[in-house]
Structure formats: structure tokens, C-alpha cells
């Protein structure tokens, strides 16, 4: 999942013809002043921090400017901010428009219906979660006819639009629908969508790109969510790796088994620090890499919980033994292993020859891992 910053989201909108305020992105105060002086952003203008967290208006991350000097000062103040843990690296300067009504429009996936859904509300400009359910319209959209003209008319009616703005909405919804499908997004959201004169303008843009479609969207490869350096290495090696704040490292295979393992560790007073999902692999090298990555996270103990299917127990055992050979004595940590399933006996034997005992049941192995982490902490 790649969340696009507002200005990148607006680039996507522009490509599909969604009406936007005139604006420009800037990375330094002098750049901000320059884009105003050059006239590419008319005055008065708004200067907005390009961060992914919401609530920018209340947090001082949105300021207004009437002159180029004020734009510079606003940019300077915002670029010095750390907004909800995120350092501001870019600001978006946009013309300030005479706004009428503020609306909400989004298209996302309704998993339960297995259909895209068009979500609209006449109460835009606030967080949609805070809007009363009765004031939100949800229109499932079938992928085959796509978003039809009558569905778009219905949306206009539910938003209380008529005349010019209703006509503008028709084109805007079609553009959003195309962007939703063709850019492989999980979400396109406009909040607020402002009535400006006889038309509509998207004042904000939230676009989330789906990871699995990366093969047909190389253009998003450069943009990544915040990851720790180790998480970044893991991503490159196609290992699911998440750092939490505890001290027990968990290596498992499959999301469900990984989550169940965390649940059991917590139950016995353990505090998982890193979890690493091997997924399906029958390459011992990948197991070795995963284990070495885990070693870099410096866990107090590691709990290996594998149920062999596609990933065979002997493969995991081989990869693990090789990794243990590579980790220097001083950086070793207690290891509790539980390997079951495909080629279990072979895997257990390989581990035994390297001095690791596999504990067959989940409960006692989890308890052993918690005790080991306490002992070495």
C-alpha cells in the first residue's frame, strides 16, 4: 500500500481531468516565494504541509499568505515542523478560492460486497468518521458497466447539487472512477470537494495505490511508505518483516500462523519485538537471510514457529543452521524452535545436530521462548 502525498494524489487527479486549484509544490522557503512571484500560484494562497497524517488544519500545518513574503514565511514555519511524527519535507502552495459548500466523495473497495463503492456526503471538510451515518450515501458500483450515468445522477441528487455543479460532478465522478481502476488504487478520496461558483474543485486528494499491482505501475516504485532500514532490506528480499517495541523475535510462515504465534506469546507474558513471516519458500538461502536480518534487530530471544507446507521443515532447518554459523558468538541469542509438518523428522534431525531442540507443542514452546527472553534480558 502506497499512500500518496496530497500533491502526488493531485497529479493523478490532473491526469484524469479532476478540476484542481492552481498550485505548485515547494521544498524550500525560497522556492515557495519563487512560485508565487512567478505567478504560477496566484495570491492570496494557502500553504499546506505534505504529510500523510490528517488534521493538518488544526495542527498549524496549513497557513495562508497574501504576499510572496508571507508565503515564504509560512513555508519556512511549516517546513520546520514535525507533524505527528513525520518531518515535513514539502509544502503545496495553492490559490485560495471563494468556497461555497464543502462535500465528500470517495471510491474504495467494499470487501464484504466484493464491489467498489462510491461514498458521498454533503458534509465534507470534516473527518468522515465523525459524520453521522445517515448523512453518508454508499453506492456499490459493479465493475462491468462501471459507474453509470444514473448512478452519477443519483450521487448529485444525494449531495443536493443541481445545474452547473451537478454537471461538474458527473464529469468528476467519471474521472475518479477511471483513476480508481486504471491506477489500481485502493482509495481515491476528495475531502473537501468544494463548490466554487458554478463548478467543483478538489481541494484535497487522498490516493492509496495497491501494492499487488506494482508490476503494471513502475511509476510508483520510487514512493514508499515509511519503513525502518531493516524493514526496507526485508522488503527487497521479499520477506515480511515488522518491527514492534518488544524483545522477542518471531519467525513463522504465513500471516495467520504468525499472528497466532504473537497471540500465544502475549498470553504467556512475552513481548514480541520483531515478526518475520517467511511466507512460502523452499530456498534455504532465503531462510538464512531472514535469520541474519532477525539477528540485526538484536532480539533477547528468537521463537521459530514453522508449519511446513510449501516451506519444508528441512529447508528451514538447513537455512537456520547456516545462519547460526554466520552469526558471531558475541551476537548469538537464545533460540526456541518448533518445526512441524512437511519433512518434519528430517528438519528436527538437522537442528539436533546443530544443538537446537524442537519443542513439538505450541504452548510449551511459547512458554520456553518467553522464559529465554527473560533470562537473557
Amino acid at each position: 500500500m502506497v499512500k500518496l502525498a496530497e500533491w502526488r494524489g493531485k497529479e493523478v487527479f490532473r491526469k484524469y481531468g479532476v478540476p484542481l486549484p492552481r498550485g505548485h509544490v515547494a521544498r524550500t522557503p525560497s522556492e515557495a516565494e519563487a512560485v508565487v512571484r512567478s505567478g504560477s500560484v496566484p495570491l492570496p494562497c494557502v500553504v499546506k504541509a505534505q504529510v500523510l497524517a490528517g488534521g493538518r488544519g488544526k495542527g498549524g500545518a496549513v497557513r495562508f499568505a497574501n504576499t510572496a513574503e508571507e508565503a515564504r514565511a509560512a513555508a519556512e514555519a511549516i517546513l520546520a515542523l514535525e507533524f505527528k511524527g513525520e518531518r515535513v519535507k514539502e509544502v503545496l502552495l495553492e490559490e485560495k478560492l471563494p468556497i461555497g459548500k464543502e462535500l465528500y466523495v470517495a471510491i474504495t473497495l467494499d470487501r464484504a460486497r466484493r464491489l467498489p463503492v462510491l461514498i458521498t456526503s454533503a458534509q465534507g471538510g470534516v473527518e468522515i468518521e465523525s459524520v453521522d451515518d445517515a448523512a453518508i450515501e454508499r453506492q456499490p458500483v459493479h465493475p462491468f458497466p462501471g459507474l453509470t450515468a444514473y448512478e452519477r445522477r443519483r450521487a448529485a441528487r444525494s449531495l443536493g447539487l443541481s445545474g452547473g455543479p451537478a454537471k461538474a460532478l458527473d464529469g468528476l465522478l467519471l474521472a475518479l472512477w477511471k483513476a480508481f481502476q486504471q491506477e489500481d488504487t485502493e482509495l481515491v478520496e476528495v475531502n473537501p470537494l468544494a463548490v466554487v461558483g458554478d463548478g467543483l474543485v478538489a481541494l484535497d486528494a487522498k490516493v492509496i495505490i495497491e501494492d499487488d499491482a506494482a508490476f503494471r505501475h513502475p511509476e510508483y516504485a520510487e514512493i514508499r511508505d515509511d519503513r525502518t532500514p531493516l524493514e526496507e532490506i526485508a522488503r527487497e528480499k521479499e520477506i515480511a518483516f515488522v518491527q514492534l517495541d518488544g524483545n522477542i523475535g518471531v519467525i513463522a510462515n504465513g500471516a495467520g500462523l504468525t499472528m497466532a504465534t504473537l497471540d500465544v506469546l502475549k498470553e504467556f507474558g512475552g513481548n514480541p519485538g520483531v515478526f518475520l513471516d517467511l511466507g512460502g519458500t523452499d530456498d534455504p538461502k532465503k531462510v538464512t537471510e531472514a535469520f541474519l536480518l532477525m539477528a540485526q534487530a538484536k532480539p533477547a530471544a528468537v521463537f521459530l514457529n514453522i508449519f511446513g507446507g510449501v516451506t519444508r521443515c528441512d529447508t528451514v532447518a538447513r537455512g537456520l543452521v547456516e545462519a547460526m554459523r554466520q552469526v558471531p558468538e558475541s551476537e548469538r541469542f537464545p533460540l526456541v524452535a518448533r518445526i512441524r509438518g512437511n519433512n518434519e523428522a528430517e528438519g528436527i534431525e538437522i537442528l539436533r545436530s546443530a544443538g537446537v531442540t524442537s519443542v513439538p507443542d505450541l504452548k510449551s514452546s511459547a512458554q520456553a521462548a518467553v522464559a529465554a527472553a527473560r533470562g537473557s534480558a
Partner: protein
Amino acid sequence: MSVLVDRDTRVVVQGITGHQGTVHARQMREFGTQVVAGVTPGKAGTDVEGVPVFDSVRDAVEKTGANASCIFVPAPFAKDALLEAVDAGLTLATVVTEHIPFHDMLVMYHYARSKGSRIIGPNCPGIASPGKAKVGIIPNVVFRPGRVGVISRSGTLTYEIVNGIKEHGLGQSTCIGLGGDPVVGTSFVDALPLFESDPETDLIVLVGEIGGTGEEDAAEYIRHHVHKPVVAYIAGRSAPPGKRMGHAGAIITRGRGTAESKLAALERAGAHVARFPYEIPDMVAEIARAPGRR
């Protein structure tokens, strides 16, 4: 009659010449499944360990009478593979492939449905009925014929639980791994009626995960339509909260989707809720000894 597969199931493996396709075609045969054909465009006339390979699913169906597909085709080509299987008249397709864009899956699901075909998956272990057939990748070693039905969103966690049931001296009627993707061809609610009406299933084990509302919907269905005992487990109680779908997603689910919400819904529906995977086999064994109660 078991659920969805039986001794008459004749499987075509799409992507049989790839590593996973070859390995799992072999394991399906070792399970006792009739694997009658493979499909890899451009490889017609060859065979994989004795299984004839065709260029198209239509050819495979005409020559071998295949009636179900197991798809291992890489994600960029999986949509086409599934549409081809549906157009060739196959009524069941397990899609093992992971990382299929959900926009593709939306097309796959609605197209298959409009033609009366069922998809299991994607990104799933598939379906197996011990002593009958397997269309998927669940390891053969965990099974033993019996009367426990298993429906799960997980992969390896399913194997773990199915294996636990076997180690308690019980067996399974049919096990379906639905897959964990946002859009799945067969949901809990789709699968539950099949097990409820299956004369070979006495009780149902439901293995869910946090995220989505499939388990809450399942609970609602169980409450009104399922009379067989249900043992349920939800993985991920302690997982850090993720905001996968952002704000618009949150207003669709409105507080549902968490482990608490799912567990409460299942308890209200009268399911026996296990807190940990290792409790499931005990609970199943206890119910099996006193059938018909819940």
C-alpha cells in the same frame, strides 16, 4: 457427497510446467486426486510426470474431461487464466497464486459468478477432502478422513489446526482454505451452507483473522442458518492495529473487523470460541463425543 470435490473431480493444473505447478500436481495425485491435464500455452504435446500438457483449457477439457482447475499462473497472467477456465466450462477453480491485484480479482469473481463457476482463493491453500480429492496445496500429511469440516482464511495456521485434529484421533470431511486477500471467490458465508448441508460433516471449525468483516458476517449466518456445532478461532488478537484502507474503509466497517468484534459476534451466534489454536482439537474432540449439542 462431500463439499465441492469428490472422486469424480478431474483436475487440470494451469501452470503445471512451473516449479510449484509440477510439485503440487504430483502431491495432488499422491493424495488420490485425478489430475488429468496440465495447461501451459506453447507446451502442448509434452507431459509433466505423465500428465499431458495442452495449450488451452478448452483443449484439456475436450481431451480429458477435466472439470476443475488449480491455477499456479503468476499474478500478472492469473486473471486471463481464470477467465479461460470459466469459459471452458469449469465450475470450480482454486487460485493458488498470490499478489493478484484486487481490481483483477473483482473482474474474475463477477465474471465467474455470472457463468456459474466458483473460485476458491486467490492466495489460498485450496480445498481437500481426504480419501477423495484435493485441488490445492494443503500438505497431504495433515489429513485423515473423518467428519470435521474446516473453513479457514489462513494457510499454514490451517495446516497446524487440521494436523491437531488428526493428532487427536479425529479426521476431516472437507477443508477449505479461503485465502486472505481483500476479495475472495468463496467467503465464510459462501462456504458455511455447503458444510451445513453436507451429510459427511458433523461439526465445523472456522478459523478467521483480524481485518475485513467476513467473520462477523459468518457469525450472523451461523446464528440463523447453521445447526451443526461450530468451533471458531480468530488469529491476531494481539497484532498492532493496522489502518489498511484508511478513512473510507473505516466508515464501511464502522468498528467491525477487530478481533474483539469478531469474537463477540461468534459467541453471540453460539459458536464455541477457542482462544488459542491448540485449544481447537480439544474442543472438537469434546463436541464429537457429545454430538448434536452446542
